[in-house]
């Protein structure tokens, strides 16, 4: 029973799309919150524009609004739903900022909505840097010396006081956006200039440099009775200067004495009280000067954060869940600790293991970006690992990254390289850990590297310990028990040991297992074994005692998708979670294996048992063995977690592990080019002409044969990694030369590139006899732009029934031909009315959550049951999981239209010169997340999707148009329409001429290449930066306009106005703009959409 009985309904704001700095962790915390609110009997209203989240599953709320998270839209929802309260602390900075805006503009007061879990005064004290400095001072602690500035001139005055280098931080931005270090006046002008733009309050903080200090963070909880607990201390391996999201972090703090730790704790408690965080969680960051112990408070977040998700996973203390209960009026001592059951939540977790989190970066996707790590977060995901010591946890975490070169390299370091490595380690980059470790291996001292990197000597010594063990392994006469035991105890993988002893991984594993050297599984219990744990949340360690309990039923193991990365994100976790939920409901015991702390799948009560483990063959095989010996394994799902588990399928099958759903042979059929084309041939389907090459000669021959342009890419990739459209031979040669990993096992695939084709994406289920076509998505951008970066619409808006029929027939033929059992995703291209099959993936795809939300059918749940032998017919009838008749390709005409739009991270990445990287879309995926706009018609749905992607289309103002020659004919109608609607059209050169001849009065402006005029008239880029332009429409042309195009796109990206780069998207935008000016924005919940859709379907089936 809630302690407060006056609250009947509550609105929760989610965090929107996955972006750098605000990712899946808010789905994890939001989902926990919704579960609590439902359990407590409240009516729950949710707004979140991200369809790939578990929290937006209709069953988690009473009314789920997949709508843009803007104050205007949320006000509409409030007006419609009239909630008693608003809970804004679980949706990251987005939710908090929205709540502040709703308070400021009087909406909360107007509708009598109470903020719970936070109050505006506390948020402002915590987030406003100057006010927060006052708080810190009143708490008897120190802040770094600083100045708040609002103009460049003020910044220069401040610089005279603080000296360089200095830290620049814009106020009220998330993930440290716009922050940086200024080493000189040029830097200062540049970073402050951008920062003033990023900050919603045009406010920037300049601060004395505390670079190289030790960095710590404490996660706190407070209840209404002023009980405060520290949930977790987190220590950054990287000293101050690297954003904590980009740093390797360790829990608990390992290099503080109790006195120093208690000092941080005392300050944290004083601060949380002074700020007045009423109930809930917050985190506080500290810097400690290594030579003196001087403590400086860096900042606080008065809300649940990325770190609190990490802290929850690291300790087993469910911060978001408990924060939600506290917001309802409970106190910490009234809330039981789920894990121990007997003890209350009013305690501080104590760990008997070490947790290491490592970031995963995607710099390879942004070759122009400067890889230096700064106070602006750039990582796109993270992996966490636990071990019984730091070395074990670190090595497990590194191999959890699944990135080539992520594991430590113990090969010989030549002496000459050591000074270079030491020099390099002065600058924080993604490689610094490796540089430091290799410098030590090459003979450098801990002192030298501390001097260079300021990484605490204790950690450096741990790296040295690993180096020493690597030498012992190398020098060992054989794979002796002592050597293996010692190596495993410090986290060496079979693969690493194999490399050091010139054995294969299999041989090492065989010997190791024969010697009985196996990991045991310990339990995360919040209390270092002081009390019995009732939650089977396990991690492996090479220690003595195993804690996995016997289980009565054979388990179903679901392999997760590992760290989020571009191309494999939260969508795959969504499918894993759904599968686990459906299978548990069907009476199975499920086991989740994953290493991503941000996700819902690694919440300890999503599956029957959770193993927080890397997803390598070795680690997965050991988990399977542990499950085997404690009660047996029914099988393993590899089709839900994306490419990560899929690539283990064959090896697992070879090891005798039953694979549920689609078989490894079938997976191979779909993935192997040759075999797959036979499947297509048999079905009478065609794919673009293609070939496989292992050398330039091969590639040239194939390209000549099929004709340029060609699409080239490595095989077995996700997210279009390394994919490129090549227009001529010199570029083909360059591509092959740069592709490092070409082997006969990993050839380069070469396809004819279909220009101006419509791309179509399909997700379907197949049980061996019947197919359920989940949905057909029509891409808005033409083929050639990665499907993950392209907007798409469901149901398709321009495809005729005849095309849909062909798509359906082709999908069935492929599913049948490959032998799918469960989910399959197929990409088609329609060019000149010919349907080409681009590729088929016999697994859950990125679009499964979108299709599920758009059609109200839970595809991943159905797929999981098909994997256990349930038929589609049974799912339609007995399980009621699929509609009785019809499917996603037969939606009624009045079905709502859903648009998925990608969210791209360009504004995060800077070239070494400090400019943003180019925002042109291409065949390589670069988006981090997605949003969904759903409405009755395409135009408004598209408008919603753009607003949700933080690219709200303008309804008046100035639009800049500059298009490539080939596009000039196709844009006239659209530009004319905008002009007629009253927009001022601004243009340059040839485009302006064409527009004028078509009767569109375009205002000419100077090209970037022309530079400013003698009279001081700026170029288009200057106008954009000055905020004069409301939308940019620029299509790239190969040659002359390239640099101009880049400059103006960069300008648009850096100030955050919509920048459209394809004609197709422009046309959609014109429709949407017109709709925005014509119709009132209406909000409809998913539940309402689904009810209408099912009513319409039922009516249709009764009429039929």
């Amino acid at each position: 029973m809630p302690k407060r009985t006056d609250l009947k309904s509550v609105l929760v704001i989610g965090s929107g799309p996955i972006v750098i700095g605000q990712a899946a962790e808010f789905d994890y915390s939001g989902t926990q919150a919704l579960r609590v609110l439902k359990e407590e009997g409240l009516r729950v209203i949710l707004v979140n524009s991200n369809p790939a989240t578990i929290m937006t599953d209709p069953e988690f709320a009473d009314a789920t609004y997949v709508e843009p998270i803007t104050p205007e839209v949320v006000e509409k929802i409030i007006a419609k739903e009239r909630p008693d309260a608003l809970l804004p602390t679980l949706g990251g900075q987005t939710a908090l900022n929205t709540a502040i805006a709703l308070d400021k503009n009087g909406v909360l007061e107007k509708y009598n909505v109470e903020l719970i879990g936070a109050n505006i005064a506390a948020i402002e004290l915590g987030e406003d840097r100057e006010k927060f400095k006052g708080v810190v001072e009143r708490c008897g602690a120190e802040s770094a010396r600083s100045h708040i500035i609002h103009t460049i001139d003020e910044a220069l005055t401040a610089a005279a006081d603080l000296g360089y280098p200095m830290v620049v931080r814009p106020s009220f931005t998330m993930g440290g956006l716009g922050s940086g270090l200024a080493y000189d006046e040029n830097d200062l002008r540049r970073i402050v200039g951008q920062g003033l733009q990023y900050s919603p309050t045009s406010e920037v903080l300049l601060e004395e440099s505390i670079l190289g200090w030790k960095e710590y963070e404490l996660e706190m909880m407070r209840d209404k009775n002023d009980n405060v607990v520290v949930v977790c201390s987190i220590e950054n391996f990287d000293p101050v200067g690297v954003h904590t999201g980009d740093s390797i972090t360790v829990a608990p703090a390992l290099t503080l004495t109790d006195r120093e730790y208690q000092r941080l704790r005392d300050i944290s408690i004083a601060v949380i009280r002074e700020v007045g965080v009423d109930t809930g969680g917050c985190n506080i960051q500290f810097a400690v000067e290594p030579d003196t112990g001087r403590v400086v408070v860096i900042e606080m977040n008065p809300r649940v954060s990325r770190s609190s998700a990490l802290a929850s996973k690291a300790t087993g203390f469910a911060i978001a869940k408990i924060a939600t209960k506290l917001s309802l009026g409970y106190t910490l001592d009234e809330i039981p600790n789920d894990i121990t059951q007997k003890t209350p939540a009013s305690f501080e977790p104590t760990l008997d293991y070490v947790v290491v989190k490592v970031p995963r970066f995607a710099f390879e996707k942004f070759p122009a970006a400067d890889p230096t790590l700064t106070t602006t977060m750039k990582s796109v995901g993270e992996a966490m690992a636990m071990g019984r010591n730091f070395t074990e946890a670190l090595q497990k975490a590194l191999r959890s990254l699944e990135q080539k070169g992520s594991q430590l390299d113990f090969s010989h370091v030549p002496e000459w390289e050591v000074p270079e490595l030491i020099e390099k380690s002065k600058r924080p980059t993604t490689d610094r850990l490796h540089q430091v470790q290799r410098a030590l291996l090459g003979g450098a001292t801990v002192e030298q590297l501390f001097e260079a990197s300021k990484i605490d000597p204790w950690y450096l010594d741990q790296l040295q310990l690993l180096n020493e063990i690597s030498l012992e392994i190398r020098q060992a006469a054989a794979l002796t028990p002592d050597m293996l035991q010692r190596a495993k105890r410090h986290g060496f993988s079979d693969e690493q040991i194999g490399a050091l002893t010139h054995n294969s991984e299999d041989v090492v594993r065989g010997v190791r297992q024969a010697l009985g050297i196996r990991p045991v599984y310990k339990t995360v219990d919040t209390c270092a074994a002081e009390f019995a744990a009732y939650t089977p949340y396990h991690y492996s360690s090479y220690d003595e005692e195993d804690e996995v309990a016997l289980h009565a039923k054979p388990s179903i193991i679901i392999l997760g998708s590992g760290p989020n990365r571009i191309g494999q994100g939260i969508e795959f976790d969504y499918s894993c979670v759904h599968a686990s939920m459906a299978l548990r409901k069907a009476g199975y015991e499920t086991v989740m294996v994953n290493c991503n702390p941000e996700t819902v799948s690694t919440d300890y009560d999503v599956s029957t048992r959770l193993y927080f483990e890397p997803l390598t063959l070795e680690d997965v095989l050991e988990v399977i063995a542990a499950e085997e010996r404690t009660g047996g394994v029914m099988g393993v799902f590899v089709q839900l977690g994306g490419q990560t588990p899929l690539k283990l399928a064959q090896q697992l099958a070879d090891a005798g592990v039953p694979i549920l759903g689609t078989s490894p042979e079938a997976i191979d059929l779909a993935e192997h080019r040759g075999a797959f084309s036979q499947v297509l041939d048999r079905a009478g389907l065609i794919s673009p002409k293609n070939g496989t090459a292992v050398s330039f000669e091969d590639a040239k021959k194939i390209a000549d044969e099929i004709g340029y342009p060609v699409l080239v890419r490595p095989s077995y990739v996700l997210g279009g990694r390394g994919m490129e459209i090549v227009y001529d031979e010199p570029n083909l040669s360059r591509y092959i030369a740069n592709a490092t990993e070409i082997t006969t096992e990993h050839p380069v695939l070469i396809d004819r590139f279909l220009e101006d084709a419509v791309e179509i994406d399909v997700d379907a289920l197949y049980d061996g006899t019947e197919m359920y076509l989940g949905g057909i998505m029509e891409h808005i951008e033409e083929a050639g732009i990665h499907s993950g970066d392209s907007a798409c619409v469901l149901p398709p808006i321009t495809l005729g029934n005849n095309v849909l029929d062909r798509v359906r027939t082709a999908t069935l033929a492929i599913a049948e031909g490959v032998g799918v059992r469960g989910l399959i995703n197929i990409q088609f291209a329609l060019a000149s009315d010919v349907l080409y099959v681009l590729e088929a993936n016999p697994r859950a795809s990125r679009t499964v959550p979108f299709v599920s939300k758009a059609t109200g059918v839970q595809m991943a749940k159905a797929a999981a049951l098909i994997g256990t032998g349930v038929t589609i017919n049974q799912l339609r009838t007995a399980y009621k999981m699929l509609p009785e008749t019809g499917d996603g390709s037969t939606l009624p005409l009045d079905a709502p239209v859903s648009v998925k739009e990608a969210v791209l991270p360009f504004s995060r990445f800077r070239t070494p010169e400090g400019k943003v990287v180019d925002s042109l879309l291409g065949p390589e995926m670069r988006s981090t997340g997605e949003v969904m706009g759903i409405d009755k018609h395409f135009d408004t749905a598209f408008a919603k999707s753009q607003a949700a992607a933080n690219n709200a289309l303008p309804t008046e103002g100035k639009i800049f148009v500059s298009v490539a020659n080939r596009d000039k004919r196709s844009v006239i109608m659209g530009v004319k329409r905008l002009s007629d609607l009253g927009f001022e059209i601004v243009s340059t050169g040839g485009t302006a001429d064409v527009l004028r001849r078509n009767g569109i009065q375009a205002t000419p402006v100077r090209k970037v290449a022309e530079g400013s005029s003698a009279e001081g008239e700026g170029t288009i880029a200057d106008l954009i930066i000055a905020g004069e332009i409301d939308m940019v429409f620029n299509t790239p042309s190969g040659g002359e306009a390239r640099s101009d195009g880049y400059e103006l796109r960069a300008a648009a990206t850096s100030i955050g106005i919509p920048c459209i780069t394809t004609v197709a998207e422009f046309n959609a935008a014109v429709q949407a703009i017109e709709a925005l000016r014509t119709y009132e924005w209406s909000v409809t919940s998913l539940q309402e959409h689904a009810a209408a859709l099912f009513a319409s379907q039922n009516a249709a089936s009764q009429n039929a």
Partner: protein
Amino acid sequence: MESNDVTESKVTEQAVTANATAPAQAATAAVLVLEDGRIFRGTGYGATGTALGEAVFATGMTGYQETITDPSYARQLVVQTAPHIGNTGVNRDDAESRRIWVAGYIVRDAARRPSNWRSERSLDDELIEQGIVGIQGVDTRAITRHLREHKTMRAGIFSGDAARAADKELVDAVLASAPMEGARLAEEVSVDKAYIVEPRDFGWDGEPRFSIAAIDLGIKRMTPIRFAQRGVRVHVLPATATLADITALNPDGVFMSNGPGDPATADTQVKLLRSVLDAKIPYFGICFGNQILGRALGFGTYKLRYGHRGINQPVLDRRTGKVEITSQNHGFAVDAPLDGATRAPEERFGRVEVSHVSLNDDVVEGLSCLDIPAFSVQYHPEAAAGPHDAAYLFDRFIELMADASSKTETDTKTATESKTEDTK
């Protein structure tokens, strides 16, 4: 940081650790033997030899130096559940007494190299110098779980030559050692000469507000410091102090500290406390001092299954309804009724209530007398190691002394007046 002005005085260095000899080499075999025959093999840590005592686990993630120098751990083999121990080395400020008291030390991963700006030497060196036998590389979590499930028990660490004996012999050696029940250890760890801790040495300006007599039953260095910081002069007296020793100082209050051993053996201190209470001198006790108050009031004490040893223990202050996170180290507890105020079995002391209770297991964590100026807690408000949430108790004692002195004045006055009336 605070320096230690506590007078170092000679003590009877009862060798709790036997046969401490040469430093352990990295590869020295070591074995931990529990009295029920469970054996854990690891390598030596600290000194090489044999250590016998009661195996207990401590769950703090920080503060190992405070832990090993806490006299309450005398004759105990301490298992640290935190896997990395020794990372910050040892320094002169953080020791809680003049020496290491743990009888033996059990860790998983000992630091190879300490790193901290205050570190003066490695923990390993410190253990060797003080002859403390330890073991590393064992599954400390398995040991902890074993102790949790099978209760705290006697154990032995054997390293070097000692580890080579047959398992049976080692178990016999453990079984031959003295159990903690019935152990009288306070006198062993206490100073034998009184000393004074002055407020001015800990940042207090001006004259002391009060003075107290603190009976050292194994007192931690931080306890008198917490008083001194609040303007209280502390006369630390040996465990053998008498009422005469106390009254000679004319203190405003009497304090009894934490300490090792079985409270059932502390008859001397119980008797002493009763006379203090009879004299209506304000009393505050911590840990052992809480158990002694319990016994003085007539309650019994009992041994917990595996004790409370950590710095994350939630305690409810029943007076305010607030939770404090406390530092705890106790294997015994007071057996008093939890519900409301009751008459003390020693009726002359009036009513008493359980003021603080463990939220984990409802163990009595504090006693408060309603009719005499006395209270105590089972946990450690002085922290070191641990959180400072309970520091208010020192203030509470100061208030109690302030009330008592104003009351004494009023009483005296009233008494004088009534006398006057009588004479009329």
